[in-house]
């Protein structure tokens, strides 16, 4: 191997460490296998144990007009009453005049893994006569969580584990009109897809037949594309070919998920299932031939949960942070760098 001689030393006292070129591991010989196990793969096991012990935070926001079944759906997703259903049937309860942000937290445990789940509800969104700019309180809330995290991160004495209140996932509920998206839907998603992971869902999908559903989905997908709305999983963040293939299928075929939620159980073929009972039959929430709830659940919870958090942290949060550093405004004790004098890390 050729040695790389160091060029100008970084300082007089310490010569720049001479980086020898990366050497792939040389096997010891034919009998190397007998002695050949170091145990590097146990690191994975260490990480898994650690994840289980420390537990994790997950913050999910639901946005949509009242009555679209947001709370029911979230409760169905997490199989528990994590969201208090607004008693929209109660005439005394008024529709809020502005959009409110209500966050409720729960600690739930499964298979030894602890999750601190926070559901952020946004009552009042889209419910007024004049809904102009009704996404602003939502965008403000999301940015406030980024700001909170940033302040902790730049502290001199900072916490080992910074509490994470950032919104990892925003479920946007589309009304099942069967026609197209509404202007409010487009405006909201246009603004918010830049700051948070948006997953559009078609609510109360049991009001559409299979054909109507397929057509509606196609139309919605087209509209989102034409309007340049990057919903999660965003194309530009696919990490490798494996991700791209998997995510392309989800983006182009499955999304937006047409879902039905329920907190009632019925007996079907000897099994207890979650569903909605109508005179013409029972709609089974977790039956893939009835609706796509199970797809949404698997997507958000069983396969992409960690990725939702990582995209929030590595992309959305970093974008916010970079903007803050650039604006130079009122950042707590820290060297603030502007674009001109900062050395690129690339």
């Amino acid at each position, binding site marked *: 191997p050729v040695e790389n001689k160091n060029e100008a030393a970084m300082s007089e006292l310490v010569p720049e460490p001479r980086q020898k070129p990366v050497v792939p591991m040389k096997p010891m010989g034919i009998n190397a296998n007998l002695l050949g196990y170091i145990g590097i793969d146990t690191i994975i096991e260490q990480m*898994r144990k650690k994840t289980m012990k420390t537990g994790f935070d997950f913050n999910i926001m639901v946005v949509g007009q009242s009555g679209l079944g947001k709370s029911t759906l979230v409760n169905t997703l997490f199989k528990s009453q994590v969201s208090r259903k607004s008693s929209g049937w109660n005439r005394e309860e008024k529709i809020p005049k502005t959009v409110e942000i209500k966050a409720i937290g729960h600690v739930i445990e499964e298979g030894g893994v602890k999750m601190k789940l926070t559901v952020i509800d946004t009552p009042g969104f889209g419910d007024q006569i004049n809904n102009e700019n009704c996404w602003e309180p939502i965008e403000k809330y999301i940015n406030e969580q980024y700001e909170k995290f940033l302040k902790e991160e730049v502290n001199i004495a900072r916490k080992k584990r910074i509490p994470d209140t950032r919104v990892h996932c925003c479920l946007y509920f589309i009304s099942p009109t069967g026609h197209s998206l509404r202007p409010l839907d487009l405006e909201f998603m246009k603004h918010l897809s830049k700051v948070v992971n948006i997953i559009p869902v078609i609510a109360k999908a049991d009001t559409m037949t299979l054909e109507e559903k397929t057509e509606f989905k196609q139309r919605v997908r087209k509209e989102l594309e034409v309007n340049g709305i990057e919903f999660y999983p965003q194309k530009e963040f696919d990490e490798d070919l494996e991700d791209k293939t998997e995510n392309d299928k989800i983006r182009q075929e499955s999304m937006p998920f047409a879902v039905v939620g329920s907190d009632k159980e019925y007996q079907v073929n000897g099994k207890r299932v979650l569903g909605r009972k109508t005179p013409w039959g029972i709609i089974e929430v977790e039956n893939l031939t009835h609706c796509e709830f199970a797809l949404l659940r698997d997507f958000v919870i069983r396969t992409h949960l960690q990725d939702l958090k990582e995209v929030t942290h590595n992309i959305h949060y970093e974008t916010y942070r970079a903007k803050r550093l650039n604006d130079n405004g009122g950042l707590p004790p820290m060297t603030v760098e502007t674009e001109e004098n900062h050395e690129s890390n690339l």
Partner: protein
Amino acid sequence: NVFYVPLHFIFSDSAGYVGFANLPNQVHRKSVKKGFEFTLMVVGESGLGKSTLINSLFLTDLYPERYIPGAAEKIERTVQIEASTVEIEERGVKLRLTVVDTPGYGDAINSQDCFKTIIQYIDNQFERYLHDESGLNRRHIIDNRVHCCFYFISPFGHGLKPLDVEFMKALHGKVNIVPVIAKADTLTLKERERLKRRVLDEISEHGIRIYQLPDADSDEDEEFKEQTRVLKASIPFAVIGSNQLIEVKGKKIRGRLYPWGVVEVENPEHNDFLKLRTMLVTHMQDLQEVTQDLHYENFRSERLKRTGK
């Protein structure tokens, strides 16, 4: 704004599975894809078998064309810092290991300043990380911080030498120190025990903080708990390394051939090599965490306080 309410489970058990218990698998998958980085520093006088030990630990040949300088050349030399990186893959898990060597340490007649270079190197890595962490573009931060330092103690003395004490006192607040008794085959088992006890006493006397293995958690299995107990009781590890394969009972093993017998590197009755390797590999994550949460944070808060911002 966030308030916690008691949870009401309203669904029967059979319907109760949500699926977030799968999260550790998701994390696993991402970690395997990303791979790991680890930086290990080795410090000790020339001739204590450092390079041989590193090669034995990772089954590599990091120093293929080594040139060993004579005494006259060593007089002129100051401490160098040499970093070599090797990529090791095992069962699909990739590790990018950087070994930072410190040739020249302890060689000079007057070794007064020989660890200043080392301290500066460690601080430079912290400085670089702090700079990167505070920068605009943080997507590709490289972690070159030293996660662990094997400090080689000579088996020829009666315990720690003054240089050993000074070094460890200067560095225990900057890096995880793992003391290692080198060339352990020059000692009988009794001599080894005596030396170990002596070293531990001196470490405690001088208030030196070496890396502490965390106790096994209560929910670990008995086997792991026992392994942790044995590891903790064997510190400092007395080790032997070898680049040679010797045939013993029909098998080819790493060892040292003497007229009076063969010393086997991977034989736990001959030395603590396997223990050292087990300790390193099962605590790689913890070593990184302590570096991040303790040593780096100390450096960072000192730095930020000093620049008065």
